């Protein structure tokens, strides 16, 4: 038995770039009142099945058809061609912006959402306190939703969700916002539901999130399936393709900027560039010692118009064997730079750099919102020497002490 079955599904949307329908157009026979209009194919011949209890991740860059796929799976809209079967007991969080009435309070919206989800009035009122409790919004539940941040909307949406036990749960990149603790709580709830037999359909740009939640992944590309399989295989392929695309898009030649040279230690399409990287320990000019704080400031500029929601990555490798010490990204930590970024500055602060003395080098990069390719990646460009007690080896020098009894 499956909770979701797509059989040769095609989906077209109206082409909004075409001129709107007017009486003049209808009379001049350029358009018809009810007939076919110019359309764009968002999904092409998709065949897929999600068995009960299964979990499927969806990946692909913007415009690949992810949202269309998820909307259809949630029962919104009908396929233009093909056959679609959806379990009636499906719950979805598709977009945070449009699912609430901005004028009504969080509490009123939660009650409405519960009734919309199919509860009776009595049931909804009985469960409302638990839902609001889950959101941790406190007194803000009495404020209109228009005053909410994205993170608060996520809290509200998940509060309602947490009270449901659907057979299929669909999430469209909603867990990218909000603070870490709450996202963890959401993930725990999802895991709980999965144990109870709920199937999961999850679209995400976070490869870690997909790895943590999904058994299988479908990679959509231009409305079709580019790859399907178990999570590791598909995501590895996706990452390899990202590296290849980055290399392909890296311009040849170009001026040498300081120690950076394109195609040698600098890769990426250069749609957005990393202009400056400042590394600082306790204070400017001082050497970095083991256990010191470390601040990495990255300045970014878009070269060809603003870019959408870029991801900034900072990773550290040990000199010599290139062992990865850490690999941090704004995406993994739920930090966004904004919808349209023309110029930006990001600072990564590490409280204590608990590393053995030695030579290291930082990689700094900025990526397309779906990890499709790198805009600019500076590979092993920023050396970092850590001073500290001699003799320590290994990747980590944790705060430690010995207690002896002889």
């Amino acid at each position, binding site marked *: *038995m*499956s909770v979701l079955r797509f059989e040769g599904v095609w989906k077209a*949307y*109206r082409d909004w770039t075409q001129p709107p329908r007017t009486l003049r157009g209808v009379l001049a026979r350029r358009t018809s*009142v009810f007939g076919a209009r110019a359309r764009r194919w968002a999904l*092409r*011949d998709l*065949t*897929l*099945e*999600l*068995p*009960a*209890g*299964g979990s*499927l991740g969806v990946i692909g860059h913007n415009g690949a058809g992810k949202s269309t796929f998820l909307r259809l799976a*949630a*029962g*919104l*809209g*009908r*396929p233009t061609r093909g*056959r*679609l*079967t*959806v*379990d*009636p*007991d499906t*719950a*979805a969080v*598709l977009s945070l912006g*449009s*699912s*609430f*009435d901005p*004028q*009504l309070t969080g509490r*009123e919206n939660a009650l*409405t*959402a519960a*009734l*919309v*989800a*199919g*509860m*009776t009035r009595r049931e909804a009122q009985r469960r409302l306190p638990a839902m609001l409790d889950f959101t941790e919004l406190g007194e803000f539940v009495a404020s209109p939703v228009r005053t909410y941040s994205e993170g608060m909307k996520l809290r509200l949406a998940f509060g309602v969700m947490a009270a449901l036990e659907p*057979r299929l749960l*669909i999430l469209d990149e909603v867990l990218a916002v909000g603070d870490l603790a709450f996202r963890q709580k959401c993930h725990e709830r999802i895991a709980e539901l999965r*144990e*109870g*037999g709920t199937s999961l359909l999850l679209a995400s740009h976070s490869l870690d999130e997909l790895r943590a939640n999904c*058994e*299988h992944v479908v990679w959509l590309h231009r409305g*079709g*399936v580019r*790859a*399907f*399989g*178990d999570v590791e295989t598909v995501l590895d392929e996706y990452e390899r393709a990202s590296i290849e695309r980055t290399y392909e898009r890296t311009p040849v030649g170009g001026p040498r900027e300081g120690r950076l040279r394109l195609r040698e230690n600098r890769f990426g399409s250069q749609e957005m560039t990393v202009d400056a990287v400042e590394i600082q320990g306790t204070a400017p000019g001082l050497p970095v010692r083991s256990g010191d704080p470390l601040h990495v400031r990255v300045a970014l500029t878009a070269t060809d118009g603003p870019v959408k929601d870029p991801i900034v990555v900072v990773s550290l490798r040990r000199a010599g064997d290139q062992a990865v010490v850490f690999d941090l990204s704004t995406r993994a930590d739920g930090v966004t730079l904004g919808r349209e970024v023309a110029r930006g500055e990001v600072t990564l602060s590490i409280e204590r750099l608990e590393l053995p003395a030695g030579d290291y080098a930082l990689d700094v990069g900025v990526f397309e919102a779906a990890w499709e390719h790198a805009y600019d990646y500076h590979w092993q460009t920023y050396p970092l020497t850590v001073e500290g007690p001699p003799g320590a080896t290994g990747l980590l020098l944790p705060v430690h002490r010995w207690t002896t009894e002889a």
Partner: protein
Amino acid sequence: MVNIVGSASRTNPLPDVTASSPTEQAPLPATAQTARAGRSWRQLGDLVLHLVRRELASTHRNTLLGWAWPLLRQLAQLAVLVFLFSKVLNLNIADYPAFVFTGLVAWSWFQTALTAASYSVVANGHLVGNPRFPPITLPLVAVGVPLFDVLMALPLLLVLLATEGRLTDTALLLPLLLAAQFAFMAGLALVVSAANVYLRDVQSAVGVAMLLLFYLTPIFYGLKKIPPEYHWLLRLNPLTAFVNADRAVLYSGTLPALIDVGIAAGATALALAAGLALFRRLQPGFVDEL
């Protein structure tokens, strides 16, 4: 482009379904089926009532007179009509205020409900975009909200009728007539709300229709005042039958005429059938148009 049938065909399949998941199996018909199915009448009714309550609360939020406004509007209209047709142009109808008010209550409900219904789906994109939301509730809510205005005006109308000595036991039939009018309007509301999603001209057309219908319904005049050769014109408008029936039981103290009952019943059945058929057909496309 590669298409692979999903996990069902893979060698490493998914957890044993029978072991972990609930045993009840929803019937899955062979044709396309959406998540909107599966909801009891009780749940649907609760949702409609909740949305009506919400609508009433938000309309009257931040107003001084609140609930009294719809009543004031009806009374203002009543005052103008009574002044015009008993003082300026005397139509010679006995107990004219009670006569007009009877027709006006039914009319106000009709006008407010259908105007609201025409944009009910279009204006509630945030609800329609929710996978579990049944859009059919929206036109029903649009018809239900102004029923509250009717219930506000009713005590006043009954007092007016009683002081004129016109209130008889036939008035007990009113709830039945209101229920019939609700069903009739629900059918029309389904038609206009669904059509307006595809053709926004509908809500403007409804506005024009309301302007015409106010004069083509015997509200401030009676059918008797019209030359018989024009009766067909007013008979084309089913609302005439509802107003006539209301007037029979309230104002005249008689049972409704058979022709009015027949037309009202026929129009209600027709409107409901057409409304449900059209709405069911158009509904799956709503989200793509909003």
